[in-house]
């Protein structure tokens, strides 16, 4: 079953065609990767799927519903979450609070009740705090729970972003270069984390440059170049595709 269906999706910035007439389907429950050289349009695609950019043309269907051009927070409510290539951390809050923001849609948030901090609000907050702490432990950040976000190392912040995204309980999780800037050991840990996320029944789409990670973890790979689809298929299929070898993978050999 397809969770995300993209048809004829394009985005241009002035004269630059960042994404052109893209057709792409994400199957429910699988791990997908999007690869391609810098400027291929991978992050632009993520930004359109999450509502940060409005597509110039084309359609995005999520879970059978046309979601093209919906605002970011409504897409979040439907079950799309993401991490960011350049960290987007709430540096004015603690690690726990960062992840608790991810529970926003699951918290009671009536204004007057919040002002009075009624027992219902306190209970809902306790639930959010508990769940956030659980997720932090799950991604391996138990030691940092009470710390201020600005005191965390880079690798930990990347995990914290993943915990925050998971706190939304998404159906679809988009990870934008989760291994960028990480060493081999940390990358291996992210690899395991992605597989565990998938085992929880969350569909994962990954934008990543680390080929070992991509080839090892993906059920399906989309190769983009200059805003277009170059190839797609399993790791083996993509690896043997002559276009891909010529345009991208072959460059290293």
């Amino acid at each position, binding site marked *: 079953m397809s969770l995300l269906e993209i048809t004829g999706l394009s985005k241009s910035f002035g004269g630059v065609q960042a994404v052109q007439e893209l057709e792409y389907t994400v199957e429910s429950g699988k791990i997908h990767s999007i690869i391609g050289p810098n400027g291929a349009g991978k992050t632009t695609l993520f930004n359109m799927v999450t509502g940060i950019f409005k597509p110039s043309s084309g359609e995005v269907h999520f879970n059978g519903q046309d979601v093209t051009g919906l605002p970011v*927070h409504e897409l*979040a409510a439907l079950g799309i979450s993401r991490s960011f290539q350049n960290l987007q*951390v*709430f540096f004015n809050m603690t690690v726990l609070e960062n992840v608790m923001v991810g529970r926003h849609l699951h918290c009671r948030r009536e204004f007057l009740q*919040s*002002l009075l901090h009624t027992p219902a609000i306190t209970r809902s907050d306790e639930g959010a705090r508990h769940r956030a702490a659980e997720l932090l432990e799950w991604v391996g950040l138990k030691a940092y729970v009470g710390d201020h976000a600005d005191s965390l190392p880079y690798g930990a912040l990347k995990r914290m972003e993943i915990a925050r995204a998971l706190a*939304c309980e998404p159906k679809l999780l988009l990870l934008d270069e989760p291994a960028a800037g990480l060493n081999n050991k940390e990358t291996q840990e992210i690899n395991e984390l992605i597989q565990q996320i998938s085992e929880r029944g969350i569909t994962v789409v990954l934008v990543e440059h680390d080929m070992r990670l991509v080839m090892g973890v993906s059920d399906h790979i989309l190769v983009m170049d200059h805003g277009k689809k170059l190839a797609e298929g399993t790791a083996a299929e993509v690896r043997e595709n002559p276009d891909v070898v010529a345009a991208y993978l072959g460059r290293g050999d």
Partner: protein
Amino acid sequence: MKGATVASRYGGVFVLAVIVAVLPWFLPNSFYFDVVINSGIAAIVCVGLNLLIGYAGQISLGHAGFFALGAYSSAILTDNLGWPPIVSLGSGLLVVALLAFAIARPILRLKGHYLAMATLGMGIIISIVLNQEVDLTGGPDGMPVSSFSLLGQEVDSELGWYWIVGGSLIITVWLALNLIDSAVGRALRAVHGSEVAAQVAGVDTTRYKILIFVVSAVLAAYAGSLFAHYTGFLTPSEGSFFRSIEFVTMVVLGGMASVFGSVIGAAILTALPQFLTVFHDYEHVMFGLVMMLTMIFMPKGLLPSLRNWINKRTS
């Protein structure tokens, strides 16, 4: 962890309540009462303004406009139309809430300097209207305001005002702390931290920015209304640009994203001009100087810097 947050939330309110309760015994004469009451009124504005600036990260250089609108609404409705003061107060808050709501949507699309300029313009427009509508406001000459009465009881003593303002401040601080420690408060702080990440977490950032803008405007108007009845005479200078800057300076000095910092900042900068004649004569220069020195030596403000310092000493 739960105990810690609850304790820090209500511990501070308790300390504030104790201070408010015992302070009258240490105030020798009505001059001191006047300073403390004015501090309390400014503190109510600053707690609201800090929710907007310090927590949600949205600057406003025009909040004296809302303060003055609250003040003049009370004055005009009570004196010109003969409404009971409490009804005038409520109506004034409603008018300011609606106005702030109408302004908020277009204005809060802007960020940083642009938002600062737009709110500055808003404050200046309000100030000009108060100056020009002579029939309604008395223009630059100002207008008298009759005294406040509650349940048929006229508030005419300084001590009476002291309890009204002190009680209002305690409640304001308590509500603000409750709000900050809720999903709504976390959403507001998230807007400050990263707007796009807040949206991805499901926060309707536009809605929350409008909400807190309206809340801070209503608090300013409430304080303005109390001020009008308390002083008994209003001039348009209450809504001037300098008044707005004073409020922002109090927030910055006390500490961004620190509710009690705002109370302290408001108290210090209200009291200083009263006790130091030098400060009085060069008030605006001093406010500028305080702002600069705070930014250079303790950009986080008085209370957060103090807290950091104590944490360092104890750990």
